[in-house]
């Protein structure tokens, strides 16, 4: 049967089902296969905050979305081209994101009366015509896999568990992808259980075959490989990128790594990864609380380790006092904050960009600190290395902001050659002659770092104000003013050591979009689409928030209007207005999820049209 092949630049597929339906695994396989074919890939897992929500409920839906294409995908995609819905609740929850005319593959077995009731449907949406704007393919997948495996000897429970692979096979066929990678993965996973392996492979292939022979499903989508640089690639989440960034930076600095941390969603995976790196000499302590996390790290920094603490909002709030200690001690320390929706416990599994205020200003006294932000899951790696570089070079705590969206989403990542990453030089003081712990490097203003074990450099430091140079406790008024100014200038001076911003789009004009952190991707996609429509809009994406890049003000002044979309109520806006006195148009979405490209696009079009009036 002849299939109709449609070439696409990019597409988004979402696998959705019950928590127990294996959707995370299915999505990961689809993503890996696509990436292996040379596509650009962005993914996002979306699961309930309950550990195991009751079966079939609306709040128990678990989903995994994959955006893949022959050009930079930037986000996990806002509109779903293909939704795989394993039950009624997963359809209900996700339908609003499916594009008009999009494809819905539904497992009829998940649309029984019980399921409909839990999903709060009166009538089955598969039957009441409400899906007429979509291409719906509904099959009883449970029945199909039972048929396929009727002779397998497996229990019904085991048989039913394979249904996600049937759906995956179907999806592979639809997008014209080979089964090989998943077959290989299954073989590795179930190598020791041949019956299970056999059954899984069979179901996967039958899913593929069913689709290829099916009369209704005549469309096939084809997405060419992206024009990727040669090299080794892997998928990586933001959290893993941070963990790897830390080990890599420690290696480049030739220093031992120490992590003091306490579990908290969505930052915990950094701790998970690091705790497995013992082979790399990495030490970690899961402390009793976040205060212990950061203070143990400060102790380790004092001892000469590359010290790190990782957390999310509530934990960051608890670290505030100790962050001030790190500032006055002028010890290097990296604080990673994976932002989630607040205030307080808020929406703990949802991303937000609302910790900028606390990162900038959340300490008693004058306690300035560099603040960096990662803009994508893979960028987490680079910014982590950068945070380490600045901390060590300037003897200062540094905050790196990521968020739940970057942390748990993944992207294809070109694995860097470690040796191409610049070395980070650390100069420990060793010479007693003229040594004083607060003598400073004339260029960076970094103080000397003398660590216990170094003969002749015994000295005392602490949280009291100290005399510049000697480091002795000092109550001298002018010294305090001077030290406050030095600490501020030291951080401000970093502006000379970071790249100036680059403008994506015309260098001047009517509208400049300034973003920070993870809104990057949605804005990039919006601009792509706007340019195709002939609009010239420019974009600056910030990785550095304190200090701001030195050319930012000048760049901003070249535009008539500045739009700052943020997942908060205007935190970067406050900062930019305070610094540059340039009025900012804020665009504030605080809904526990990121902007869609469409939202940004729409907002910009609105602004452009206002202009025209």
């Amino acid at each position, binding site marked *: 049967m002849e299939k109709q092949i449609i070439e696409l630049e990019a597409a988004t597929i979402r696998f959705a089902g019950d928590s127990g339906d294996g959707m995370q695994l299915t999505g990961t396989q689809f993503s*890996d296969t696509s*990436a292996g074919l*040379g596509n650009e890939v962005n993914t996002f897992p979306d699961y309930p905050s309950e550990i195991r929500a009751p079966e079939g409920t609306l709040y128990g839906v678990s989903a995994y979305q994959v955006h893949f294409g022959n050009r930079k995908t930037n986000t996990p995609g806002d509109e779903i081209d293909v939704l795989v819905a394993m039950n009624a609740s997963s359809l209900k929850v996700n339908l609003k994101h499916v594009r008009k005319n999009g494809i819905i593959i539904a497992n009829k077995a998940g649309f029984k009366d019980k399921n409909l009731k839990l999903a709060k449907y009166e009538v089955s949406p598969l039957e009441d015509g409400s899906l007429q704007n979509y291409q719906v393919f509904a099959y009883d997948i449970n029945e199909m896999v039972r048929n396929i495996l009727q002779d397998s000897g497996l229990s019904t429970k085991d048989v039913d568990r394979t249904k996600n692979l049937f759906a995956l096979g179907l999806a592979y066929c639809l997008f014209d992808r080979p089964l090989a990678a998943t077959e290989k993965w299954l073989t590795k996973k179930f190598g020791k259980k041949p019956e299970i392996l056999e059954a899984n492979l069979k179901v996967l292939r039958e899913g593929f075959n069913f689709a290829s022979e099916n009369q209704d499903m005549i469309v096939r989508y084809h997405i060419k*490989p992206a024009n*990727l*640089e*040669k*090299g*080794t*690639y*892997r*998928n*990586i989440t933001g959290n893993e990128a941070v963990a*790897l960034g830390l*080990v890599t930076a420690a*290696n480049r600095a*030739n*220093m*031992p790594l*120490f992590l*003091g941390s306490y579990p908290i969603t969505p930052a915990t995976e950094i701790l998970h990864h690091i705790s497995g*790196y*013992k*082979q*790399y*000499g*990495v*030490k970690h*302590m899961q*402390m*009793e*609380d976040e*205060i*212990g996390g950061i*203070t*143990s790290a*400060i*102790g380790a920094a*004092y*001892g*000469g*380790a590359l*010290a790190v603490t990782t957390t999310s909002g509530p934990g960051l709030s608890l670290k505030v006092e*100790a962050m001030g200690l790190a500032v006055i001690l002028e010890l290097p320390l990296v604080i990673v904050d994976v932002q989630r929706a607040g205030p307080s416990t808020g929406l703990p599994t949802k991303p937000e960009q609302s910790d900028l205020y606390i990162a900038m200003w959340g300490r008693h006294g004058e306690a300035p600190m560099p603040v960096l932000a990662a803009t994508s899951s893979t960028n987490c790696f680079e910014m982590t290395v950068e945070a380490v570089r600045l901390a060590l070079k300037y003897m200062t705590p540094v905050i790196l902001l990521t968020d739940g969206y970057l942390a748990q989403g993944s992207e294809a990542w070109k*694995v*860097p*050659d*470690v040796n191409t990453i610049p070395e980070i030089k650390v100069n420990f003081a060793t010479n007693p002659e003229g040594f004083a712990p607060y003598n400073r490097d004339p260029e960076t203003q970094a103080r000397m770092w003398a660590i*216990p*074990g*170094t*003969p002749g*450099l*015994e*000295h*005392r*430091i*602490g*949280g*009291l104000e100290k005399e510049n140079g000697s480091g002795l406790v000092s109550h001298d008024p002018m010294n305090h003013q001077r030290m406050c100014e030095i600490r501020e200038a030291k951080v401000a001076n970093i502006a000379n050591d970071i790249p100036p911003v680059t403008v994506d789009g015309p260098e001047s004009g009517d509208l400049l979009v300034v973003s920070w952190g993870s809104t990057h991707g949605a804005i990039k996609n919006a601009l792509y689409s706007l340019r195709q429509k002939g609009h010239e809009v420019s974009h600056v994406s910030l990785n550095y928030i304190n200090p701001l890049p030195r050319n930012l003000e000048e760049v901003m002044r070249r535009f008539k209007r500045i739009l700052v979309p943020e997942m908060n109520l205007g935190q970067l806006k406050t900062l930019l207005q305070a610094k540059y006195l340039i009025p900012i148009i804020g665009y504030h979405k605080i809904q526990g999820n990121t902007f869609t490209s469409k939202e940004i696009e729409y907002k910009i079009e609105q602004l452009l049209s206002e202009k025209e009036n």
Partner: protein
Amino acid sequence: MTTYVDQLINKEYIDIPKYSPKDFKADIDVRWCAGCGGFSILAQVQRIMPDLGVPKEKISFVSGIGCSSRFPYYMNVYGFHGIHGRALAIASGLKVARPDLSVWVATGDGDCMSIGGNHLIHTCRRNVDINVIMFNNEIYSLTKGQASPLSKVGQKTKSSPLGLLDDPFNPTSLVLGSGASFVARGYDKDPGQLKYLFERAAKHKGFAFVEVYTNCVIFNDGAFEEYTRRETKFESTIMLEHGKPLIFGEKHNKGIKMDGYRPVVVDLDDGIHSVNDLIVHNEQDSTLALILSDMSFMEGLPRPMGVIQAIERPTYDEKVTWQIEHEIEVKGQPDIQKLLKGSDSWEIN
């Protein structure tokens, strides 16, 4: 490539200089009040330092905030005056990062057991190899006289002008209940015993907790008089010695025996009791340690002084090192490039 820290960790010392206590005095005025119990602690710590067998630069003192927490400034070794309550967490990170160091913590009853309580109990449990000296003056001194969690019920302090309602901790019970491996108590006016206890703490591999009754002449003068004054101390305290029966009293004529599961005082001159009835101290018996500690706060029983418990078990910091060594042994030398590549990479050509 070995790191600078590794070099320090692995440095071998052929001969450590012969130090005198003076070598450990920092060149700075001690800013405690005349008569403060802290002086006695400082003197004894400085006295034992030369014989630790550790080069000076390998010794670190960490503290929190309080009069007592000024301690590191007075020691000519590496010193870290932290923030209130966090000394043990800072010290834990330091010791785990730097197992080669001799790490000491100087802390007050408020710093250690009020705001610092959580780090205290967890450091006990983990058995990080840190020596803690808790200056117990049963008061917040630096902030000028508020109740501490060791102040007495009914005590009038600046923050309890009408009498304190809180029951205090029994501090040795708290640390024993938290899993401390070495627990001892001394007092400022017995420098000889203090010296002994600090030596023992230093030698103990693992977490060592020494409570020192420390008179604050300004805000809680005489809080421990009963236990330190010549006239009363023999009846109100008992000096523990490993392997020795629990005898006390000016005339050594009283003892402690078990009555069921409770310790009671017996008169050795009553013709009924003899030394054989008495509890024999055993530093390595965890149950006995609990009994002795509990007895500290019992009406009519003398307060045990000395080493209440000394039981070694693997320390957290050495386990960290072992785990790393074991991983390298099993999995081979680290290869960062391999780690970055992960197990599911693919090639684009």
